C-alpha cells in the first residue's frame, strides 16, 4: 500500500511536470553562443546578397539607361486581376500571370516590380494591359498607354489599378516617380 502511494505520488508529479513541458515546452538550452555565430553568418550572407544585388543592378541597369515599371492595386473591389502584359514602343517586354498569393499581396498594398531594363534617351511609349474579371465575373481587359521622355536618370513608372466608385469600375492611373 505504501509503495502504491509512492508510485501514485510520482505519477502525479510526472503528470504536473508534463503539463509544464507539454504546454510551455521550455528548455534551458545553452546554445546561445553557437546560435549567435550562426545568426552572424546569416547576417553576413544577407550582406553579401545585398552587395551583389547592388552590383548587379549597377552593371546591368545603369541609372542613365534604366527603366523600371511597377504594378500596384487599389482595393480591387471592381476588378480581380488575373494577368498583366507590358509593351514598350509596341514591343512586348514583360507579363505576369498572378497567383492568389501575389494578388493578395498587391491587394494589401504591395508594389510589384514588373520590369527592369535598359532604354535609350528620348521619347518612349509604354502600354500596360490588365486582364481579369469585373465585379459580375465577366472577363475584362483594360489598357493604358503612357508616353514619356527618358533622360539620363533612372525612369520609374508605376501603373496603378484604382477602384473608381463613381463609375463602379476600375481604372488605370500612371505615376512617374520623381527621384
Amino acid at each position, binding site marked *: 500500500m505504501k509503495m502504491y502511494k509512492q508510485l501514485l505520488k510520482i*505519477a502525479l508529479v510526472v503528470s504536473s511536470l508534463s503539463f509544464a513541458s507539454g504546454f510551455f515546452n*521550455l528548455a534551458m538550452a*545553452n*546554445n546561445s553562443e553557437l546560435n549567435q555565430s550562426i*545568426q552572424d553568418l546569416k547576417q553576413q550572407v544577407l550582406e553579401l546578397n545585398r552587395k*551583389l544585388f547592388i552590383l548587379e543592378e549597377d552593371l546591368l541597369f545603369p541609372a542613365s539607361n534604366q527603366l523600371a515599371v511597377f504594378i500596384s492595386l487599389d482595393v480591387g473591389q471592381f476588378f480581380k486581376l488575373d494577368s498583366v502584359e507590358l509593351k514598350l514602343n509596341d514591343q512586348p517586354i514583360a507579363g505576369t500571370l498572378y497567383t492568389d498569393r501575389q494578388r493578395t*499581396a498587391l491587394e494589401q*498594398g504591395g508594389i510589384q516590380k514588373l520590369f527592369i531594363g535598359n532604354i535609350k534617351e528620348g521619347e518612349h511609349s509604354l502600354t500596360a494591359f490588365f486582364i481579369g474579371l469585373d465585379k459580375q465575373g465577366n472577363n475584362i481587359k483594360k489598357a493604358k498607354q503612357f508616353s514619356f521622355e527618358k533622360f539620363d536618370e533612372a525612369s520609374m513608372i508605376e501603373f496603378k489599378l484604382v477602384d473608381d466608385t463613381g463609375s463602379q469600375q476600375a481604372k488605370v492611373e500612371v505615376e512617374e516617380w520623381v527621384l
Partner: protein
Amino acid sequence: MDLRRGIRFQIDKLPDESLQVTSSQGFRLLTKLKQILRVKYALTPWLLLSLSLNHAATSNVFADEALANNTTMPNKTAMADKVYRQAQYLQQVGEVSNAVVLLEKFSHKQLKHDQLLAELYLQLNMPWQAQSSIQQYQFVQTDSRSKTQALLADVFLDLTQVALSQKDLTSAKFYLEQINQPQQLSNSQQALYLNLAQVIYWPNMGSDNEQLAELIVANNVKADKENINLADLTNQLNQVVYQYQQQNYQQAATKITVWFARVKDFKLDGSEQNSSLQTSPRKTFENLIAYATIIRSQISFAQGQFKQAKQQLASFARDNAFSQHALYLYALTLMQMGELAASEAALNLHKQEFGISHYYWFNMPLLAQKWQQQQEYVRAFNVYQQLEAEINQALKQLPNSQQQMLVADFSQASLTNSVAKQDIWQGLAMQNNQVAGAIQLVNQVSQLDELLAALKLKIEWFDYLLEVQQKRFTRIADSVQQAELQQQISQLTDKLTVFNQQLVVVDNIGTNTADSNLQQTPLELLNQLNKTLDPQQAKWLADFNLSQQIIDSLPNEKTDENKDAKKKARYQQRLDKVAAVLYWQVNQQLPERSWQYKKALSQIEKTLAELNQQQQRLQRLTSEQFKLNQYKSDFAQIQQSYQQIVQLTKLSKQQVTQQYQTEVKAFYQQQHSMLEKALLTTQQAIAHLLENLPERAELKEQADPIELGPAGSVNDV
C-alpha cells in the same frame, strides 16, 4: 576654392533665356546639373542641398511665369513608402531575403522601415538582427518617445516568443528584461508580457510580476468579457496552475470554474486572428481549452472527486495536443475508482496510440499494485510480465553506443515529425528539451545552407555577367583600334583648319573694296587665292608666277639701255593684264566658292562632331571599363567573403552536429539507465509477488484461469 560660391555664381550667371523654363524643366535641369556636378566635383550632400535651395529661390522668382504656363512643380515621390510597399510585396510572396536586401539597400538613404525589417529578420529566424534593427530605429527615431517605447516593447515581446519557441530560455529572459516598465505597456502588451513572464520564471513570478498580474486581473474584472484576449486567458489559467501547484486545491477549483464561465462567450478578435508571428490563434485557443480541461480534471482528481474527473475527461477530444495526457489521466482516474479492467484497457490504448512513454512506465506498476490489492494476483502477475517484456523489448530497440551511426546520419530530412514517428526513440528524443534545442541549431544551419546555396547561384550568375561584359569591352576596344578614330579626327581637324583659312581669305578678298585690293597686284591676290582655284586656273597661275620670275630676273639697272627697261615694263604690264583677267574671273566665282566652302565646312564640322561624340562615348566606355574593373575587384572581395562564410558554416555545422549527437547520446543513455532501473524494479516486484502469493490465489487460478488480451478492449474505455 569655395565650390558652393562658385556654383551659385554659375547659376546666377546663367543667361535669362536658360532660366526662363517651366518649373518642371527647371527641376529636371537641376537634377541633371546635380548629376554632372556630382560626377565632376564629387559634391557633398550639403552642397547639393544648397543647390536645391538655390533652385527653390529661382523657382520662386519664376513662379508667376510657371503659373502662366499652367505647369506644376512635380513633387518628389515618397520613395520610403514605395520601397516599403515593394518590400511588403516581396515578404508576402515569400521572398523574405529579397525584401531584407531591398530595405537594407535603401537604408543608407535614411529610409527607415526598421519595424518591417525587424519582422523580416524574425521570419528569417534572426532575432538578434531584428533587435539591432529596432535599436537603430530608436536611435534615429524622431517620433514621440511613447511610440518608440511601444514599438520596442512589441519587438521585444516578439523576440521573447521567438526565443521561447527556440527553447532558448536565457535569450527569452534577456529580451523580456529589456522591457523595464511593464506597467506602462498597453493592456494587450501587459497581458502578453505577463504570460511570457509566467512561462520564463515559472513557478516563481517575482513580486513585480505578481503585482502586474493582480493589476491585469483587476482590469479584466472591470472590462467587458469580449475585451479579454488570449493572453489574458492564459494568464488567468496560469494563476489556476499556480494555485494547484501550491496545493490550494479549493482555490484552484473556484478559479477554474470562473475561468470556464468567462471563456464560454469568448470570441477571437480580428487582430488575434491575423497575427503573423504566432501559430493559428484558433488552434491556440483550442489547445488552451484542452489544457484547462486537464487542469480541471487534475484538480478534481487531487480533491478525490474521481467521478467528476472521469466525466470531465470522457468527452476529451481525441485529435488534440493534450489527448495523450488526457488518456493517461483517465486511466489513472479509473484505477482510483477501482475500474481496473477499464484502466488497463485505457493504458493499452494509450500505448497503442502514442507508443512507449513515461506515462506508461509509471502507470503499469500502479495497475499491478491495484490488482494485487484486489487479490487478483494472476492479473497483477500478468501486468508485471507484460511490463517486463516491454522493457526488455524497449532496451533492445534503444540505440546503443554502437548505433550512434544512426545519429550521425541524422539529416535535416529525418528531423521531420513524419520520420520521427517511424522510430519511437527518435520521437522521444525529439521531445527532449536538450535534443530539441540542438535540433533548432541544426535547423538554423540548414537555413543558412539554403541562403548560401542561393548566394552561390547569384555569384555564379554575376561571374558570368562580368565575363560577358569584359568580352563586350574587348570587342569594342578592338573595333576602336581598327577604326583609328583619333587619326580620322585629326585629319578632319586639319582639313577643317585649311578650309577655314581659305574661307577667311575668300571672305576677306570678297568683302574688301576695290581700292584696297588695288594696293596688291592681281598676281599677289591670285596667289592668296591659289588654293581656291580650279586646276586650269592653278596651271595658269603657275605659268604667271614663272613669267613673273623671268621678268624679275631681267636686268633693270641698265639705264642706258632703255630698250631693255621698256621691254621689261611691257612684259610686266602684259602679265598684270592677264593676271588681272584671271583674278577678275576668280573674283566673279568667289561668292559661289565661299558658299561651297561654307557647305563643305558645315559637313566637315558635322562629321567631326559625330566623331567627337563617338570618341566621347568611347571615353565613357573606357570609364565603364574602369567601373568594370571596380566591379571585378568588389566581386573578388565578395567571393572571398563567401568562401570564408562557407568555411565558417562548415565549422558551425560540425559543432552543431556534434552537439546534436552529444545530446541524443546523453538522452539515450539516460533512457537506458531508466529502463534498466525499471526492469530491476519490475523483476523485484514479480519476485515479491511470487514469494508472497497466497495458496488460495494459486487454487483460484487453477479453478478459474483468467485470460487477458494483450491490449484489453477499447470499448471498455
